[in-house]
């Protein structure tokens, strides 16, 4: 069949613009737009920003430093002078909690970020490739899971003492980041891989494959967004785990050295005097819980916002 040439008109760029009714926005812009409509998530986000500001600038407004001791005011309960009370060496608990926020928040951020990035990519590739590649990649995960974490930590501690003798082996937060970065992505990798194994056999993935979409595009554009729920839940779990692992690592001798202390450290130190001075546990524990609550609500909001099916 023949069509007359006149029926075909070349479209100009301008016409194309006019054809599309909805402005083209990216996946991420869309997600942000939807997140803004979620009040609980936004309150959480604002709280987290506020917390960051307090952690960064709060200590400068306090008349005390985190190390100022005063044996005349040991273990006092909350008062106007010391809103969070004082600890066993008579130090102001409020300023210590503010300093602690710096450590705990950065540890939480870094841990969830590495968990997210390494875990998702590794697990995604393993699950999508399947077969032999999957077998090898997952055995590596098993091996990393099996080697005792404490051995890693002591190795790192010794290594850091060799490399940075001046810092006494603690080597600040970097050593904590490395220690956590080594193992924290493992659960994420397994979760993502499990999801991908199942998702890649579903109709939409097969459809994408049939139309010849490149593999990486199928994985990162189609499969991983569909697994966002479990991914975000796992990433938010890694925050409290990181905060408490940090306390344990500091206790063993990695990380920032005393008298600076993180939330986890403040909480675990307070445990042995819980009966006599419950306020020492209450404030750091409260700080951790409220922060996590905020992160979780934000996480839930993000999950809804990032869910491709919710996209309109």
């Amino acid at each position, binding site marked *: 069949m023949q069509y007359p040439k006149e029926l075909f008109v070349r479209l100009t760029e301008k016409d194309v613009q006019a054809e599309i009714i909805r402005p083209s926005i990216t996946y991420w812009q869309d997600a942000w737009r939807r997140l803004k409509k979620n009040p609980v998530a936004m309150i959480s986000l604002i709280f987290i920003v506020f917390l960051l500001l307090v952690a960064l600038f709060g200590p400068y407004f306090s008349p005390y430093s985190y190390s100022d001791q005063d044996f005349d005011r040991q273990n006092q309960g909350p008062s106007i002078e010391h809103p969070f009370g004082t600890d066993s060496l008579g130090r102001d608990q409020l300023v210590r909690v503010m300093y602690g926020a710096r450590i705990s928040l950065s540890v939480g951020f870094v841990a969830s970020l590495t968990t997210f990035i390494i875990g998702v990519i590794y697990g995604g590739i393993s699950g999508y490739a399947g077969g032999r590649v999957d077998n090898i990649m997952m055995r590596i995960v098993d091996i990393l899971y099996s080697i005792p974490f404490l051995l890693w930590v*002591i190795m790192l501690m010794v290594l850091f003492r060799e490399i940075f003798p*001046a810092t006494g082996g603690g080597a600040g937060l970097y050593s904590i980041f490395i220690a956590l970065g080594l193992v924290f992505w493992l659960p994420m990798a397994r979760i993502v891989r499990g999801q991908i194994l199942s998702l890649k056999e579903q109709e939409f993935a097969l459809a994408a494959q049939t139309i010849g979409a490149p593999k990486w595009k199928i994985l990162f554009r189609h499969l991983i967004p569909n697994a966002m729920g479990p991914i975000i839940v796992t990433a938010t779990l890694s925050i409290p785990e990181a905060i408490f692992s940090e306390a344990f690592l500091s206790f063993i*001798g990695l990380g920032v050295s005393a008298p600076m202390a993180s939330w986890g450290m403040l909480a675990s130190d307070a445990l042995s005097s819980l009966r006599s001075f419950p306020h020492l546990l209450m404030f750091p524990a409260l700080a951790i819980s409220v922060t996590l609550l905020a992160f979780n609500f934000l996480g839930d909001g993000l999950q809804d916002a990032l869910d491709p099916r919710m996209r309109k």
Partner: protein
Amino acid sequence: MRKFTFTVLILLIGMTLLIGGCSGDDGTTDGGDAMVFRYNVGTEPETMDPHLSTGIPEATIMLQIYEGLTRLNEDGLPEMALAESVDVSDDSMVYTFHLRDGLVWSNGESLTAEDFEKSWKRALSPELAADYAYMLWYIKGAEAYNSGEGSVDDVMVKALDEKTLEVTLEAPTSFFESLVAFKTYYPLYQPAIEADPEGWHTSADTIVGNGPFKLVSWEQGKMEFVPNDNYYDAEAVVLDRMVFSMVENESTELTMFETGEIDMTHTVPGQEIPRLEETGELHILPYLGTYYYIFQIEESPMDDVNVRKALTLAIDREAIVNNVTQGGQLPAYAYVPYGIPEPDGVDFREKGGDFFSYDIEEAQSLLAEAGYPGGEGFPSVEILYNTSEMHKMIAEAIQEMWKQNLGIENVTLTNQEWGVYLDTRDEGAFQIARAGWIGDYLDPYTFLDMWMTGSGNNNSRFSNEEYDSLLKDVRMTDDEVARMEMMHRLEEILMEEMPVCPIYYYTDPIMIKDHVKGYVNIATGGKDFKAAYIEQ
């Protein structure tokens, strides 16, 4: 859906009932008026072989089921036990112990001097490889045999007959009678060891003892003892039963004490002490030991004695014991702790007196003399301690004191896991390190000999010719008075050179129910419940 949640709920309730419902006998309550004593020994024993064991919990357990030639009393002094009497030769080199009549093991077999000879030689055998074998090195020929250089036949311990044991020493050892109360000197029931050389001590069924109690069960973190009817002094034993638990967590232990699940704890959480003092059940028992910091004196700035002294003098020890440790510890202004009596009955420490005091001005001028007036230009130094909440608090307090009193700003704190910490200390890769020493026996020598040049425990790398030669003299003399004089001089040298900065003398704060009576605390470690009873 509602159906589903309902099912889950029912399941859960059912499970709780099942668990809660089938309550059994928890084994700690006895019917009638049996007198039961429950103690928390604090940890699972590493081994129940007295010759191999090294720890204090083990020492306490062994004290109940074994006994040596002597037994230590409340003051830490030896009293005749399995031995009825002892003859000492004029040169103090030969001890002849006479055993009591009719001694038997807990299984009724007779216990003879030969058991002692065999047991001591076993403890020394290189194949057994016992850590504490060196506690027997005072015996002639013991070190050579233990080191694989001599023969077992040259170890000078001999059973002259069934009831007489003759021991020849390398040198006069004034505290030998206390030494034979130590667990490495216990006699062991040879047939049990021969039957199962490796595992004889791993089960209550195969352990044969000779002490006031016998072990009847050991499982799942709990040990039970009953009086040993075959014990020669069985009338002195009042308790009907003892239960030792092995709870390591201090807070848990305290809760168990407060809920009445145990009668005596092995320690208390330091921060709870002020509250516990009000209950009247907190007891501060003596413990022969010193908590101190050591300086690695080979490197600058710690190679300067004035720096070491300045740092030592600038520590407010009263504040540390009253506000930080809070367990009735005594501030240490010298090195050897209280609790060691001299031959004339006066305490070694009281006679020696204090060597320094808390003196900020003096400390400042010493620091200025060393070239750091007002702390200016003082290089950054590091305090090393092993992982523990208490060590951390003490280090934090001292860091602040040096800052306030001396103007030293850059003191960093480093904590290390135990094994790494020991290694760092051994290698001397530190500037200031926390350390402590608990006496092995009731004599200043146990504190002083470690500062000998090249001694494995001398992590400070301290070396002083006069000190070394005096130590040798102390070992060789049999004149008790002159010996004590020399040891005072040794301590003086130590405090002049200050390789060690004493902080406080240990105590042993524990919780004891008011109805527990008659227990004996041994200052070198361990508790003796032979004559303990519950007041009813």
